[in-house]
């Protein structure tokens, strides 16, 4: 712990040892060729293992048939070879941390391989961009690109439009027809973009490079949340991480408040067994705050303000997470910018007060109703998700277990580091503070997911302490344990992250069907869907009108459905049934394939609809009577 003379004593010893080692390395005699080979052999072994993992994974892709996946997602189609490749990847990563001299490239390559093989897996096995919300975001982007308008009364997200205007700029400057073309590789790109800030953050929390890379790897291995698609939250997570990286690297106070020292001393007196004899073994040297000139500090502060401003104007939740994180650091007096949370709060207040009036006018009561009601938020975030098909319920339960398991791993890591004389105050505060967001509201049942994401970097850091509580070399038993834990995590990630893939994947056939209807439909026609899973709305957002008719469709109430469509007074009304909609109805609401097919047949045979399109993955009905221009 900083300021603890016992710890400093240990740190001094470590620094001395490190310096001695460095001196030895510097003055090492020229080695004979055989010795050089012996030194390079472990490096070659690690690279061979990583290449083998990549090759096996690539070879296994041929066996994945996305059309055959079940309600438990991609893992149902994952061949054994793929699972073996994840185990080999975990082994390669773990061995890369034992290399002498230490390698940066090998753990970096292993981390990039993890991103590509698991987070980028859908892009390799699916034939069209995935995830319905990404299509909606592409539609928002397309609206701004084509019309330059903010439809603040149509969707709340237009009141925080900067991400979409940014997307519009990018697509037009880069000559990309529609933002949905960015989606296939969005997960890989976003995860790679997060890598830099993560390494800087972890490098500000420890000087042990092995722990830095372990925390990074664990972050990606435990990030099943899936908020890495084409979305404002993915972009904002980059901003969140970058701001934290700047604050922790340049604006951190390496001083532990007196009251925490007193608590630790009290603990030492009352429960000496907590740290016991290990406290003097030498914790990793606490990392330095990097010195900066006043000009550099001013520029860095300017970057923080720029990124905060962009975040405030592009996402509803991230600025609150930033306020929580900065407040935690300020309350613990761990930052030289104690006014930063106030500044962010002022920016958020100004934005909400002046720029989101249209949204607030209709939603203020609903927004305030959850305030300070964590019970309601928890119910919305957990209880209401435990429904659907048996396979889906298994996936939700699996995610809960994985989440709790990872938090337990983090707790164990924090305790182990503490027993070795190191109190990771910043990581503990930043891991815990996002849970305060539960007091805000349920966030459409997604708040716990977001809290998990915001706290994940620091949970991963704490969990890494389980393997690297001290600067000593990883023993072989510890190496085996680490390889096993990371391998299990990678397989668990495949299950948890891609557990909804049957509904989240959109086939090229579905997308083509949407395009064909877009091409034939007159302006201001109604595009009706059973649920929002699918590709509808990804372009020409204002050209057509949209309706969701789940209730009438699933109750097979033809009269009510036709009345609902007629009420829109549109020239034509199209009703979409797609593979992904059906999968979502079965997975999330527990409908059987028979019920879905029967409801379609009832509509088609009612004489009130005419089939205008039928493909393997899509069927489109047109409400009749309809003018000839509708066909």
């Amino acid at each position, binding site marked *: 712990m900083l300021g603890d003379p016992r710890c400093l004593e240990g740190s001094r010893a*470590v620094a001395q040892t490190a310096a001695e080692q460095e001196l030895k390395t510097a003055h090492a005699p020229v080695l004979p060729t055989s010795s050089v080979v012996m030194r390079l052999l472990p490096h070659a072994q690690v690279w061979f293992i990583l290449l083998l993992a990549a090759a096996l994974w690539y070879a296994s892709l041929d066996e994945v048939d996305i059309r055959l996946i079940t309600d438990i997602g991609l893992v149902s189609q994952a061949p054994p070879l793929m699972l073996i490749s994840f185990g080999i990847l975990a082994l390669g990563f773990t061995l890369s941390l034992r290399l002498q001299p230490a390698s940066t490239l090998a753990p970096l390559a292993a981390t990039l391989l993890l991103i590509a093989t698991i987070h980028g897996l859908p892009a390799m096995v699916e034939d069209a961009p995935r995830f319905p919300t990404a299509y909606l975001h592409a539609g928002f982007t397309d609206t701004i690109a084509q019309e330059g308008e903010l439809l603040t009364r149509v969707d709340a997200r237009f009141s925080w439009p900067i991400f979409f205007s940014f997307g519009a*700029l990018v697509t037009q*400057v880069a000559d990309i027809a529609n933002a949905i073309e960015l989606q296939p590789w969005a997960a890989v790109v976003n995860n790679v973009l997060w890598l830099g800030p993560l390494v800087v953050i972890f490098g500000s929390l420890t000087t042990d490079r092995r722990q830095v890379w372990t925390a990074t790897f664990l972050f990606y291995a435990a990030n099943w949340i899936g908020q890495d698609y084409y979305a404002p939250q993915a*972009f904002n997570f980059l901003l969140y991480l970058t701001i934290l*990286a700047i604050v922790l690297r340049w604006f951190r106070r390496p001083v532990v408040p007196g009251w925490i020292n007193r608590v630790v001393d009290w603990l030492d007196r009352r429960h000496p067994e907590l740290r016991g004899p290990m406290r003097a073994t030498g914790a990793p*040297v606490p990392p*330095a705050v990097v010195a900066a*000139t*006043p000009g550099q500090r001013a520029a860095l502060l300017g970057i923080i303000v720029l990124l905060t401003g962009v975040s405030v104007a592009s996402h509803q939740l991230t600025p609150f997470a930033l306020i929580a994180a900065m407040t935690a650091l300020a309350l613990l007096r761990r930052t030289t910018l104690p006014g930063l949370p106030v500044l962010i709060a002022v920016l958020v207040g100004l934005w909400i007060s002046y720029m989101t009036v249209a949204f607030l006018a209709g939603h203020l009561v609903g927004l305030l109703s959850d305030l300070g009601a964590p019970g309601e938020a928890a119910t919305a975030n957990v209880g209401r998700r435990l429904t659907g098909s048996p396979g889906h319920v298994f996936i939700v339960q699996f995610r809960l277990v994985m989440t709790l398991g990872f938090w337990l791993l983090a707790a164990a890591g924090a305790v182990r580091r503490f027993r070795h004389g190191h109190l990771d105050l910043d990581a503990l505060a930043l891991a815990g503070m996002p849970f305060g967001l539960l007091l805000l509201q349920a966030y459409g049942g997604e708040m716990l997911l977001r809290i998990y994401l915001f706290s994940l970097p620091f949970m991963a850091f704490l969990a890494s302490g389980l393997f690297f509580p001290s600067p000593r070399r990883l023993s072989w038993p510890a190496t085996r344990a680490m390889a096993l834990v990371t391998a299990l995590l990678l397989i668990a990630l495949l299950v948890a992250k891609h557990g909804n893939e049957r509904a989240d994947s959109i086939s090229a056939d579905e997308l083509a069907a949407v395009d064909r209807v877009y091409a034939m439909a007159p302006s201001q026609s109604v595009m009706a869907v059973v649920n929002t899973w699918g590709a509808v709305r990804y372009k020409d957002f204002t050209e057509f009108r949209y309706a969701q008719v789940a209730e009438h469709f699933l109750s097979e109430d033809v009269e009510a459905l036709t009345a609902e469509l007629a009420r829109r007074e549109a020239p034509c009304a199209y009703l979409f049934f797609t593979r992904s909609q059906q999968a979502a109805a079965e997975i999330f609401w527990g409908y059987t394939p028979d019920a879905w097919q029967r409801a379609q047949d009832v509509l088609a045979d009612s004489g009130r609809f005419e089939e205008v399109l039928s493909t393997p993955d899509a069927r489109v009905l047109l409400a009749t009577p309809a003018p000839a221009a509708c066909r």
Partner: protein
Amino acid sequence: MMSMGRFEPPLLLAWTMVAAAFVFGDVQSLARTMVALSWLAFGPGLAFTRLMGITDVPVRLVLVIAVSLGLDAAISGVLVYAGIPSWELGMSVLLSLTVAAVILHLAPPRLNVRLGWEAATDVRGKLAEEPRQARMVEALLAGGTLADAAEAAGVSLVTLRRRLRSSQALRRAVEVASGGSLEDLENDPPLRESITR
């Protein structure tokens, strides 16, 4: 690009001109997409972070991407709210800001246009490199002596003493590492002795 020293400004200018030519020449090819995307992700940030004098390449890369994307997003948003959502204008503003930042950096130091952001360069030689400074501060933070700090930074003790006398930035680094002021530090006899000797 990140560590090309004096070649960086002309290379960045050339890259900026190529990006402008592809975009405003309305070239429709994969090359335009690649050049434009890469420039939007790195170009503006490279120009602005160079003014800050941060030499640690990975850390600078983090700032480069954040500043580039932040500026792109901010400018696109301002234009939409201003009622002029023109990508040509947005790109023009970004190109102009980038070129201005590069020119600002190329201007003679006596014009003092760098706003003192490169004051760290008053630490000359090896110690101007941020990783060395970081290692030095780490050694001090771990309770090491000035000799430990010099060894960690890979310079001689004589050099470090000389730089400490001449460099406010370095003294500031030592202050931060000690968690107190230089006065506190000077009350520590061994350090005071080594600094003032």
